[in-house]
């Protein structure tokens, strides 16, 4: 009786898309992983290697970003500048007390390079000046 083909549902013709379903499953899983686990944030210059240290404070939002490269060159919000230009640009700001500054200094930069930036920043009463570091691998 069962061999009577008229009683069995007609077998659906296999669609070529059926072969892609496992692929889509995996791609969806990868997509969800990167969406949930990753963070989208503006990265500093690729040549800049942040110092590695297990600091207490989490990354807080900084309105201004000052990068100090290994050679000591300064970059304020993506625009290279000299210490004099940095002072001019900071002077043009209106409300220093509401601005927090994040310093992204290369771990190989010297204290003299950092001092170039700090000497200018000390002239203004910013809300905070923070030095950024990267959590060592295995502690993130």
């Amino acid at each position, binding site marked *: 009786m069962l061999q009577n083909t008229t009683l069995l549902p007609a077998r659906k013709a296999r669609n070529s898309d059926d072969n892609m379903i496992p692929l889509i499953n995996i791609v969806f899983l990868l997509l969800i992983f990167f969406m949930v686990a*990753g963070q*989208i944030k503006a990265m500093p210059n690729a040549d800049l290697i942040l110092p590695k240290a297990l600091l207490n404070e*989490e990354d807080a939002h900084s309105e201004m970003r000052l990068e100090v490269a290994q050679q000591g060159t300064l970059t304020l919000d993506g625009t290279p500048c000299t210490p004099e230009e940095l002072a001019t640009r900071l002077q043009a700001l209106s409300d220093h007390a509401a601005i927090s500054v994040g310093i992204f200094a290369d771990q190989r930069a010297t204290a003299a390079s950092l001092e170039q930036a700090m000497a200018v920043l000390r002239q203004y009463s910013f809300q905070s000046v923070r030095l950024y570091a990267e959590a060592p691998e295995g502690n993130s």
Partner: protein
Amino acid sequence: MSSLAITPRRARPISLTALIDVVFILLMFFMLTSSFTQWLTMPLASQSASSEPAETEELPQLLVLHQDGAVTLAQDKPTRFTALEQALEQVNHSNSLVVLPEADIQVQRIVEVMTTLSALDLPAVTLGQTLPGDETDAAAASSHSDLPPE
């Protein structure tokens, strides 16, 4: 009447090719833009710290970082130590401390030292001005009246 009955519309299969195209583009976007590095911060200066009056008249201790790994701890008088660990034993835990690196000290070393000092639970650990290498000992030995601003 039966001729007017609406026959159920057959569902048309949706092609998955368009879906996988979009999902691939989204996957590429998130793979290229996502970052897994965790950033941590260390305060170097803050408005509250600079505006609050000092609670005590006691002058802060100075810790000079030398290029050769030695440190000079200046309390009443400067004392040079060959390693930071030796200086940490002499640090006064009830007084704040200012780190003065030599000009050629790398940022990594400054961060390491300040991280170590922050674990000591001192009232404040701040980064002072960088001093030229040949003047650090003299600066540490000098009176606290010309202390660099914190």
